[in-house]
């Protein structure tokens, strides 16, 4: 059986969620490996949400929100950007590298970009293989 990556996505309500809606209304297709968890804003995403996703066995996590300057809440995405720019390096330093955590800005108008993004991420994770044993954050009890 081929490896089907499990990708958990945390997206903001106003841009990326709407962008993903547009992908749907435009009937663009993409890999069915992604599961979206909707939050009001990327600023809401706690670093622990990402660890929780890995704890539950996700092969990768995608975080996506509004482009800089477009945040519905004015600056949530800027807060998120600073937080993730450091946290992703800490993750990489502890062994969870850039094949496992992805970041993107997708606006409500970028349906095609969302489809491409999901496809690219899915491909990259598929190539990287199952996280499984290498996943330090995986629940083992």
């Amino acid at each position: 059986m081929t490896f089907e990556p499990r990708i958990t996505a945390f997206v903001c309500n106003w841009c990326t969620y709407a962008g993903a809606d547009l992908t749907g209304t435009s009937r663009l297709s993409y890999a069915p490996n992604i599961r979206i968890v909707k939050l009001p804003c990327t600023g809401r995403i706690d670093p622990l949400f990402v660890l929780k996703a890995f704890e539950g066995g996700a092969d990768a996590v995608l975080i996506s929100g509004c482009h800089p300057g477009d945040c519905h809440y004015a600056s949530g995405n800027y807060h998120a950007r600073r937080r993730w720019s450091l946290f992703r390096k800490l993750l990489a330093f502890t062994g969870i590298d850039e094949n496992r955590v992805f970041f993107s800005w997708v606006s409500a108008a970028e349906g095609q970009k969302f489809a491409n993004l999901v496809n690219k991420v899915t491909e990259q994770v598929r190539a990287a293989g199952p996280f499984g044993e290498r996943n330090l954050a995986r629940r083992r009890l």
Partner: protein
Amino acid sequence: MSGAIGAMRADAAKLLSEGAVKLVLGYCVRGNERYPCFISEAAQAEALDFDQSCRQNLAAYLRKPEVRGRAPLAVVSSPAVCRSLLVLSSESQIRENEVRALAIGPKGYGGILGLGALGAWLKADYPDLVPEQALLDRVAELSAKTAQERAKFWMKEFEKCTRCYACRAACPGCYCERCIVEKNMPQWISSAAAGHGNYAWEVIRAFHQAGRCTGCGACEAACPQGLPLMLLNARLSQDAFEEFGSRPGYELEAKPLIGSWSAEDDGSFIR
């Protein structure tokens, strides 16, 4: 150094005898070890000592109600402790009239300094407190390895953690009333001393110090299991400095690194 220590003892005695402070937090020597000690009478000031082996960060005591209840306090403060005091001040944990520093470091004794004066002392004598080169070399060495090798390294290290939280106790930045490891509904971080819980604890503990860690090394020194916690802290401090110019603990009032932003922040990692 002995002159510096004498001056520091004299100042401590003076503050106590004048009633300017009720308690002096300092270090004493017992055998080969350096331990925190608490002086409440001028006559005891002779017990105070200081050298580079004093790794405990006395600023951590400022979260103890038993200690805070005896304010005004004076704290024997190495440069790292001074920085911690400033971080605590910028996070509204301590106030000017509550705590004074008996500032002392490799370049000598800086006198009795209020929080407002610490920044100037640090900037003059210790403007570039960065992690030691040996530590940075270890960080670089580990960073140069593959993700898989790093994962293996940390899995082995984190496995040792017993979750005694000595690191948390030793760190002045860990002053939360309720630590996230104590948060349930939902269980925020698994409390079992195993795999994912240990990983989440170590990583989140380090991340909570992003832009706040002053590099004192007390956490690593306190860890009974010898975990290389400073590797995490140093790497984060390095990233925070390189990306955002973060130098915590040099200003009395500073915006938190995580919790502020700039339109110029790096976004190249975002697709």
